[in-house]
């Protein structure tokens, strides 16, 4: 296929390949490898903004035609799919057996499972169910030289050799391109409810989450949204400076018990109930909420992901809000309260700030997060700024080990060159 308009950070891909089978994927990669051609895996294209600038233009290996369910065994709670399968398509198949894959990254209708695993994408449900590493149990991967290998299987417990699934999860296509993936799935909850509580600050919302856990409630998700982020998501006027979204999923009686209990906790902790949703409304709402941080209004966006420790999270939220004020940006903040991951989405008119201003702000944010025991990853920023920025900001000593692993698996540096941590 030629004449494509696909670009990765404004670098056009010279060619696209669209394998239809794992075997064809291996053949294509072997040919590219033998010709010394760099290559980049592309699934639904929802996360191409993640990562450093490519060191060289890459042939795009698109997985769109490598799609479909390979084997679904509801009575083993496992499913195997080809890597290019969109998440939403898988969920529709699982739904017929009242099961689901508890992953809710943004843009499920386009995001493919290969891309989700490669980027270790997650969403609010990670509070209860964990992330890709807790669900991926088997993998087929083609390495840089076209050699296919497999690891794991369709077993929920397996210590036969190294856990290669962990190595490949989040490796951003730098160790190989996935052909197929096997996940453990979960039964769907009989009932789902969502309670929305307004708070004057992120600190109070976070304190409420601790009270919720101490009271033995078992929420699916605990998300705090800044008033502006909540308003954009719901289309309503802001109801409070911060809104805590609490989702429960259990049998009907257990959901009702938790909602009642939460009302007591909220009134004791200064939270005001803004809204409560039942099962059907909840599912629609959380479907939209998962994608919220990716949906902008067309202005120039900056998307940062900050991970810190609990004690520092309110200050980090404030620091992120102040950053938006300094840039006079439309600022939307989202906090996974259970894991203290804060996403900040900033929007301003195209080209309003020079590279220097943005680099200075990001450096300040990084210093803040490091002091808070964490780190900040820039997920989306104007491509020209990336010339002077390591978007990952990882400085740990383990980078040497990571480089050695990369060298062992891809000695010629042909897979997604430069985009991963430390320019791997």
């Amino acid at each position: 296929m030629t004449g494509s308009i696909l670009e990765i950070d404004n670098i056009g891909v010279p060619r696209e390949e669209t394998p239809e089978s794992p075997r064809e994927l291996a053949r294509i990669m072997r040919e590219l490898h033998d010709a010394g051609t760099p290559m980049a895996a592309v699934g639904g294209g929802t996360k191409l903004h993640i990562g450093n600038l490519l060191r060289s233009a890459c042939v795009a290996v698109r997985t769109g035609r490598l799609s479909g369910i390979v084997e679904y065994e509801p009575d083993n709670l496992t499913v195997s799919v080809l890597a290019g399968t969109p998440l939403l398509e898988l969920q529709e198949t699982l739904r017929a057996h009242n099961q689901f894959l508890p992953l809710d990254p943004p843009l499920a209708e386009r995001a493919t499972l290969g891309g989700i695993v490669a980027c270790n994408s997650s969403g609010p449900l990670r509070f209860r169910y964990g992330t890709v590493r807790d669900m991926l149990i088997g993998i087929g991967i083609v390495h840089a030289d076209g050699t296919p290998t497999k690891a794991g299987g369709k077993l929920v417990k397996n210590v036969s050799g190294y856990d290669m699934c962990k190595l490949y999860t989040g490796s951003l296509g730098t160790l190989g391109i996935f052909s197929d993936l096997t996940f453990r799935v979960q039964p769907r909850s009989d009932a789902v409810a969502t309670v929305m509580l307004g708070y004057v600050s992120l600190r109070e919302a976070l304190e409420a989450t601790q009270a919720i856990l101490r009271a033995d409630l078992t929420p699916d998700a605990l998300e705090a949204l800044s008033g502006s982020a909540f308003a954009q998501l719901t289309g309503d006027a802001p109801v409070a400076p911060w809104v805590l979204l609490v989702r429960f999923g259990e049998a009907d009686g257990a959901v009702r018990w938790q909602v009642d209990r939460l009302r007591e906790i909220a009134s004791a902790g200064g939270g005001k109930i803004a809204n409560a949703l039942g099962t059907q409304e909840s599912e629609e709402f959380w479907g939209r909420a998962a994608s919220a941080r990716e949906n902008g209004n067309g202005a120039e966006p900056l998307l940062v992901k900050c991970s810190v420790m609990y004690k520092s999270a309110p200050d980090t939220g404030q620091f992120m809000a102040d950053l938006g004020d300094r840039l006079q940006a439309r600022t939307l903040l989202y906090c996974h309260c259970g894991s203290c991951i804060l996403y900040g989405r900033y929007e301003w008119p195209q080209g309003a700030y020079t590279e220097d201003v943005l680099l200075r702000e990001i450096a300040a944010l990084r210093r803040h997060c490091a002091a808070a025991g964490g780190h900040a990853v820039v997920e989306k920023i104007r491509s020209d700024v990336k010339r002077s920025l390591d978007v990952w900001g990882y400085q740990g000593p383990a980078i040497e080990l990571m480089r050695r692993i990369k060298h062992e698996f891809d000695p010629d540096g042909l897979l997604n060159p430069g985009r991963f941590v430390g320019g791997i």
Partner: protein
Amino acid sequence: MLSLTRMKSILELDFENRQAVVQPGVINLDVSRAAAPAGYYFAPDPSSQMVSTIGGNLAENAGGPHCLKYGTTTNHVTALEVVLPSGNIMELGSRASDCPGYDLVGVFTGSEGTLGVVTRAVLKLSRLPQSAKTLLAAFGSLKDACDAVSSIIACGIIPAALEMMDRRMIAAVEAARNAGLPTNVDAVLIIELDGLTAALPQQADHVANLCLQSGCKELRVAKSEEERQAIWKSRKEAFGTVGRMTRDLYMHDAVVPRNRLSDVVSRIYECADRAGVPLASLAHAGDGNLHPILLFDIRKEGEEERIMSLVHEMLKICVDAGGTLSGEHGIGSEKCEYMDMLFSAADLTAMQRLRVAFNPDELCNPGKILPSRFHSYC
């Protein structure tokens, strides 16, 4: 030999972040005991948890009865300080979520000491469940018990634990402890449901009905915490009681898909019957993790060869059913030659690449996991 038993401090319990920072020589159960007053615990619960250490749990990616619902050790660790074979100290992962870069904590966990040595671990703590309900179901045949397991897994309830013991194992436990397990049955299932008090009665009814539909002969529900603890004590000490029945034993550790359980279990027993080797069985049945225990006397002429050939045959039955060589005990040196049953040369080469990145000269635990041809000194 590096002994980590003197590194036995719990360095920090951080309930706000639900983390415990511990040294490798800390006993598994001591983490949960320390966290319990605040309502937290460390979820992985190998049957050895009263004596096994966190360092060993990490090296083997230990499981346990409750990993059916809560996952194994690897799902409960967020950062490690390790010493590499070079002597360099390295921080892997981070206490804050989603450390950028490859998941080195994930690959290190379960690496059986071949990548280096853990000197400090940041573990995830879980909230103690509000309630637990434990059922004991007795069956007239192993097949009925396996069918009950499969139907529970398929029904939309994930029990906290779903354990199976066969007739000979029940007899061993009763002979040693007089625990009051139903005798004259071919199998018992221990089924534990946990979570919100409001959710449990309905789940327990559902599970009880599924057991009855699969031919359950007797069903008990623990009425008090003491009864519940007594049931678990009989299960956790079961392996120890087998020693009274035999001079020597070999404990298997294979895993099969949960929907193949009945078929695989019957083939394993046929295979042991044909060889005339008595079998006692424990299983983390909900995970598909089987622990058939072969009972024998090694002093008999040719017994070792006979047992090892039976072991091989049983592994093959599991692998042919889509299963694997080990669920929680690891490959070590005993099973490394069997890795070819499961993996292609290319699959194993990928694993070797990982090892080489950490341990190029094979100074740490040489000869383990991969077949001998992958080891440099051979």
